[in-house]
């Protein structure tokens, strides 16, 4: 999307090891464009927070270069990087009022009093906390502290803001509300945001692009929709959203399609992603909502396979049905609760099928 | 049940025995050891009465506190002469009956056998000891000879050890300043005399290491912390003769006095305590102590035969304060002076010490 030359933030062949034995970050290459909202998503220990800390300057890269606005910042201390940061537990200074917390980054930059006050007021108004300047952090609720932390990270007009799981401590409703606000601030201020989370929902709703981390590597870097619909490997497919997995061997491979013979003998259609030739082992991944069970909706010429209903769950807006398919007992389909939608009964024998482009043949 | 009975009987017997032990409080170190060897052990061997030795920096202090608090745990204490008089005046001590003291081995009645002043209303002398000064012969092959040399930092460079307290220090300073022993207390009785003593001390004040317990003095000398120090003569004798330290005593301006056994009022085992004192201050008892430390026995009869140190060869006579050669320029400590002036001069001494 953005080439390293014009990238605002660039990681080039970055490696990080804490103990000199194993690598926490393995050959990281990442380019982040100006104004972009990039999320690093991954399970704990995947290297995403380490990457963020290297960018902030609290960890040094063992190898490789980190560039900010075209300049190598490997040796620039954190306070000279001019990067705003929001911490997991907010890290508001407990011995200062809200106003003093916001004033701090301005004071250390030697800003005059009147200018400081104007900026503090603007930043607090931005997060609707204008009335709280004289409170201490301990007197605020979690959500309010979160807003102040955000305001503090933004008050000195950084070009880049890093957020390390900033919403992790909030309850679900507040979290969703804050997601929206952060996204809104990002858009209105035009800043670049690098956001770290292990919550895929958060990543998908807020980001321009998501970098999925696992085992010290970026598994896939893509916009949310691509990530969901076109996972490039079985880790991403498994990590993002729900999906059905079928083991098999490539039977035939053609231009953009292939057929896969499952272990139980059935043949299905799929789109080859990580397979290139006949006889390769593969894992076919299909989203539950893309599986069809009404024969009239099966695409022409595509294979369909037998299934037996094991369980039917009524979820209000959705029906969730668990099937036995090709020996697997946790094949799930989701269907919308539309007018006249049929409720399947356990024990019922049906056939299921799908568009070949919805079934992705990935690495086994 | 029977077992229990035996146990309780044993325990009560033990408690009784422990209670009947005569507790003697003395100054620790070589002196305490000499009393343990010369008095406590043979007394127990002879009478079967148990004895316990406890140490103190100055037994006069704790026994007064004990008597005032009504919790006396000591039966016999070894105190300085002036303290024996003062404590007796203050009613802290039991009186001692001179008639109960045994005659000398040669039959001389106790009253005549003891040297003058050795028995008072409340105390019996065990020995005559002296505050002297001593130096390390390896440091000064041509050692100091007089008290004035002690104050001569130019001729004999190095730190000086002195006892932290007014008594004996002020007299020593005056003698070093040229006051004859006979005039020391007259001079010290006047404000000018006191000023003179402190002025003399001022000349070495910054080079003095102050010691408090008697055993510290030979230790400071042995550690090389001081080049010369005031000390109780017996402590130096023991370090030099028994331990082979290169220490030399200077007898000039020695200040001698009697050391007294006293019984604090309300002592738990008063009768045994009196029995102990009679034994310890007999001709034999005094000789036994004098064989362990070079303090002069206070009975004439104890000196009839030459005393030999426990090493079997050193004759004690010349090492005692009372030896004629050592008495050339000696001062007998004036107990009356110290009974009267102790508080005042020590207050002044403390203030002087604390002033920079």
């Amino acid at each position, binding site marked *: 999307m953005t080439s390293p030359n014009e990238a605002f933030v660039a990681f080039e062949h970055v490696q990080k090891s804490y103990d000199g034995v194993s690598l926490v970050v393995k050959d990281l290459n990442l380019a982040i464009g100006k104004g972009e909202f990039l999320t690093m998503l991954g399970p704990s220990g995947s290297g995403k927070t380490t990457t963020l800390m290297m960018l*902030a300057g609290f960890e040094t890269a063992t190898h490789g270069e980190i560039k900010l606005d075209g300049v190598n910042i490997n040796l620039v201390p954190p306070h000279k990087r001019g990067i705003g940061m929001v911490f997991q537990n907010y890290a508001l*200074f407990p011995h200062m009022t809200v106003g003093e917390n916001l004033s701090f980054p301005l004071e250390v930059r030697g800003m005059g009093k009147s200018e400081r006050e104007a900026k503090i007021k603007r930043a607090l108004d931005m997060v609707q906390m204008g009335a709280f300047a004289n409170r201490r952090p301990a007197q605020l609720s979690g959500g309010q502290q979160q807003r102040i932390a955000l305001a503090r990270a933004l008050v000195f007009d950084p070009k880049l803001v890093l957020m390390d799981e900033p919403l992790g401590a909030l309850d679900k409703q507040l979290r969703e509300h804050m997601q929206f606000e952060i996204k809104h601030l990002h858009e209105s201020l035009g800043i670049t945001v690098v956001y770290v989370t292990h919550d895929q929902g958060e990543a998908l709703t807020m980001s321009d692009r998501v970098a999925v981390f696992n085992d010290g590597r970026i598994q896939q870097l893509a916009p949310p929709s691509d990530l969901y619909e076109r996972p490039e490997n079985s880790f991403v497919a498994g990590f993002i959203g729900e999906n059905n997995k079928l083991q098999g061997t490539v039977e035939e491979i053609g231009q953009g399609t292939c057929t896969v013979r499952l272990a139980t003998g059935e043949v299905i259609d799929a789109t080859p992603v990580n397979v290139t030739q006949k006889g390769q082992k593969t894992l076919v991944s299909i989203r539950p909502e893309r599986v069809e069970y009404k024969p009239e909706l099966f695409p022409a010429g595509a294979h369909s396979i037998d299934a037996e209903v094991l369980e039917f769950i009524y979820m209000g807006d959705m029906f969730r049905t668990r099937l036995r398919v090709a020996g697997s007992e946790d094949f799930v389909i989701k269907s919308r609760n539309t007018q006249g939608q049929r409720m399947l009964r356990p024990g019922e024998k049906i056939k299921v099928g799908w568009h070949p482009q919805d079934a992705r043949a990935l690495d086994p | 049940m029977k077992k229990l009975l035996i146990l309780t009987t044993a325990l009560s017997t033990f408690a009784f025995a422990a209670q009947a032990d005569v507790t003697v409080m003395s100054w620790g170190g070589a002196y305490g050891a000499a009393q343990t060897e010369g008095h406590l052990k043979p007394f127990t061997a002879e009478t079967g009465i148990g004895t316990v030795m406890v140490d103190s920096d100055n037994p006069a202090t704790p026994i007064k506190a004990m008597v005032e608090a009504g919790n006396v745990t000591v039966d016999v204490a070894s105190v300085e002469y002036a303290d024996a008089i003062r404590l007796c005046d203050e009613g802290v001590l039991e009186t001692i009956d001179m008639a109960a003291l045994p005659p000398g081995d040669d039959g001389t009645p106790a009253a005549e056998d003891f040297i003058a002043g050795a028995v008072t209303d409340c105390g019996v002398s065990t020995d005559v000891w002296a505050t002297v000064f001593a130096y390390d012969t390896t440091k000064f092959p041509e050692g100091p000879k007089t008290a004035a040399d002690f104050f001569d930092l130019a001729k004999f460079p190095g730190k000086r050890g002195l006892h932290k307290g007014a008594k004996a220090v002020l007299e020593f300073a005056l003698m070093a300043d040229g006051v004859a022993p006979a005039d020391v207390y007259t001079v010290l009785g006047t404000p000018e005399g006191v000023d003179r003593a402190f002025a003399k001390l001022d000349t070495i004040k910054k080079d003095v290491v102050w010691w408090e317990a008697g055993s510290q003095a030979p230790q400071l000398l042995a550690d090389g912390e001081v080049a010369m120090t005031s000390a109780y003569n017996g402590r130096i004798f023991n370090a030099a003769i028994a331990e082979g330290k290169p220490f030399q005593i200077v007898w000039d301006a020695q200040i001698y006095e009697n050391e007294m056994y006293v019984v604090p009022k309300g002592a738990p085992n008063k009768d045994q305590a009196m029995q102990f004192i009679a034994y310890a201050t007999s001709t034999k008892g005094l000789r036994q102590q004098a064989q362990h430390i070079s303090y002069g026995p206070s009975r004439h009869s104890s000196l009839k035969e030459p005393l030999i140190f426990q090493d079997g060869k050193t004759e004690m006579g010349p090492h005692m304060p009372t030896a004629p050669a050592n008495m050339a320029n000696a001062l007998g400590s004036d107990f009356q002076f110290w009974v009267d002036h102790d508080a005042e001069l020590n207050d*002044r001494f403390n203030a002087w010490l604390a002033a920079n």
Partner: protein
Amino acid sequence: MADVSQAPLQTADGRPLKAALAKAQARAKRRAFLLVLPLLAFVLLTFVLPILQMLQRSFYHDGFSANAPATVAWLEEHPQGSEIDETAYAALVSDLAAMQKAKTAGAAGTRINYTYPGTISIFKEAAREAAKLQPPYKAALVALDKKWEDPLLWVTFRHAASPWTTDFYMVSMDLRRSTDDGLQRAEPEMRIHLQLFVKTFGLSALITGLCLLLAFPIAHLLAILPMRKSNLLMILVLLPFWTSLLVRTSSWIALGQESGIVNDILVGIGIVADDNRIQMMYNKYGTILVMTHVLLPFMVLPLYSVMRVIPPSYARAARSLGATSWTTFRRIYLPQTLPGIAAGSLLVFILAVGYYITPALVGGADGTLISNLISFHMAKANWSQAAALAAMLLVLVLILYWLYDRLIGIDRLKLG
């Protein structure tokens, strides 16, 4: 709501709610009280009572009042300013004679000697002679010693006539009475207490400062190291705690004295000349050095307990906001350690002010503190003087504590 304000609430059976509540809670309260009773009794017996007793001692001495009844009676009949006539001396002589019999001349003289130094001897002398004295008694006594006609002596008697007295506080402040019953400063060569108080507080403040300087980095290291390493280091900090104070002080003497290990090494590597060894024991430097070491754990522990719970993210936040490491330390880290600094300083200072053994062993002449003088008075059985000095020390420390509460707030104290 209106009903409530008019009539007190009642329980279902019509009793006032308050009474019912009190009754219901009485049992629980009684049980709680019984549980704390042992501790209460213990504190009362071992702490409050001795302090009260000490305070009483500092105001009480009956050495003269109990042993000179006739003189006391005369003083009561004749107000301040009356001429000291023959009847007064007659009363005195009769008292002296009684004292000689009861062996109390020393006790009475000692009491007078405390506030009029140099008078104990005239008491003893006069008591010995009392039975033989003939009227006129004034002339007879003055013949024994001129001091008997000193008006100051009678002023002193008047103040000693009651066992309750503030004389010991007067002495503690280096004051003495003048002939006209006023107060004047003691002679320069007898002044010691105020100077010693100042020195004690000064040295204690210095020691507290040194402890803080040394303990801060140690506590910080302990707080940021991984648990396993910090535990090891903690043991090193606490080890001296488990060693006898006497052993530690003696070890310091072995290390620091002129012929000690430190000086030997310095001479060995040529930094110090052999005839010019550093004297760091038996003076105030010895006191400062050893007390700083001995009291260090009392500073480290509160600091550590505060620092351990300061998350590293504050420092990171400050750095990311543009602060240098020094600014981060000064404005973010240091203020958050204040409760620990305050607690440690208060603890070390109060301990230092009352320290006794260490200055006694290594303090020499100029490194001794007020507690050593208190101990001296106790050794000389002058309990009242010792108690007065101790009470003054207690009051000064309480004032400091109060100041501390005003300035920092006692609720912010964090001991660990």
